[in-house]
């Protein structure tokens, strides 16, 4: 299942995985803030946080190819926006700074999400007094996004298996139908989940 691979490693075992979620979240935030506030003229010294991250990555025992693939998936957006920075005096240096900062932060977040099950992060948010409605929404979203993404793929495949003449305009209509069907299924499932929650005492 495609989307599943994006947090495939969050349940593996390693020194990093065993650290408490709250600590990891705080560390990630701290690292992001540090990288953001790091003065531009000490650019070469960014090797320090970079080194820390690479150490963490190594200790986490997540396959480096996986980390690299995730990084490359998200880099083009970074490069695209950073390219706009070129159009000003000192642009190239600024662009380099942006790319380095972004990449370090990306690596931080990729490591965080792949060493911490989402359920644990939710628990941290709950402890931070995030409103219950938002927590329930996040919980249900995470739980069902794989289910719905799967349904979406299956519907798409089913429609394409009966598409014998490919016309681009037609494809949009087909995809729009999949999207509307997906919403119908999501809202029907929401009703059933509501019943299931009530059946177990939710009020």
């Amino acid at each position, binding site marked *: 299942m*495609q*989307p599943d691979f*994006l*947090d495939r490693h969050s349940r593996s075992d390693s020194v990093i995985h065993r650290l408490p979620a709250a600590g990891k979240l705080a560390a*990630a935030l701290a690292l*992001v803030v540090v*990288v*953001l506030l790091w003065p531009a003229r000490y650019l070469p010294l960014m090797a320090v946080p970079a080194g820390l991250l690479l150490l963490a990555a190594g200790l986490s025992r997540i396959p480096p190819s996986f980390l690299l693939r995730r990084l490359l998936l*998200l880099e083009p*957006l970074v490069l695209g*926006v950073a390219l*706009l*920075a070129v*159009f*000003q*005096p000192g*642009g190239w240096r*600024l662009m380099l700074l*942006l790319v380095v*900062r972004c990449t*370090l*932060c*990306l690596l931080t*977040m990729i490591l*965080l*999400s792949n060493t911490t099950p*989402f359920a644990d992060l939710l628990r941290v948010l709950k402890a931070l007094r995030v409103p219950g*409605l*938002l927590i*329930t*929404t*996040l919980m*249900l*979203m*995470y*739980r*069902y*996004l794989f289910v*719905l*993404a799967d*349904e*979406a793929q299956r519907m798409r495949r089913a429609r394409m298996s009966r598409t014998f003449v490919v016309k681009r305009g037609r*494809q*949009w209509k087909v*995809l*729009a*139908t999949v*999207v*509307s*069907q*997906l*919403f*119908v299924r*999501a*809202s029907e499932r*929401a*009703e059933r*989940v*509501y019943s299931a*929650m009530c059946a177990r005492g939710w009020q």
Partner: protein
Amino acid sequence: MHIPDGFLDAKTAVATGALAAAGLGIALRQARRHLPARRVPLLGLSAAFVFAAQMLNFPVAGGTSGHLIGAVLTAVLLGPSAAVIVISAVLIVQCLMFADGGLSALGANIFNMALVGGVGGWAVYYLVSRAFKGLFGRVLAAAFASWCSTVMASVACAGELAASGVVRWSVVLPTMAGVHMLIGLGEGLITALVLTGLSRTRPELILEPAQVAGARPYGLVAVYGVLVALGLALFVSPFASQSPDGLDKTAEELGFDAKARVTVPAPMPEYTIQRFSGARVGTSIAGAVGTIAVFGLCWGLARALVPKGQPKDVAAPAPRQ
């Protein structure tokens, strides 16, 4: 349009974070008061729906593909406050779980896509659907609102990037707004198609705009409007008032040395002011014409999807308790 970490400076990140937290707080309070218990799981499931729908690729010319953003679609189906919660949830999960959108930029992303795009887009939808009745009116409103929402969100995004000093306003605005004016067309088309599809199969899911807004729609929009206006005042208007025109000016400035980077040079004030007003009127006219043109396109689309003589309106569902 997810801004990654590292692009926004501290002040922008904090300011947008505060605005986003305020907007989300309002939405949650609204939902706690008005959302019936049986619709609570629908928020989570809708967030999952938006995420799953965003993964479907709509083929565009030459091997590229676009995808739905879904802010206005969500707002049309669930109402503005629920949409804010849903879109924020999507952005939070995308940030924490998939590193899509920076942690420090979460506030800005929520402000742009949930508040400006979601509520702003819904406001456009509400007004247009009141002006043009029936299913036709709603499809037209949804298509146009989706386009507006995409463009408005991109302008806010551009403002934040410029305010952080990473890109020049004169570069980032035309790029982002220009690109998103095109992306917005796709968004409008998909939203219109989806809404028409739903009206055929499950019309009861499309609530009357008045019903989702609740008792005081204008009051609600006003509250969100204050937040959005504040944000735009912080990030967009400083540039709008002194933006030189387009890329030719910036190319000129590339020759300047680093010291001149921060302030906009004004060697000949009178000349510059003249160019400003001319340029501003010019861009404003272009913008207005473009918007009208898009409205016309949406009209044609809605007409094509809901031909005359079709049932005038979606079967209005019984009012909810």
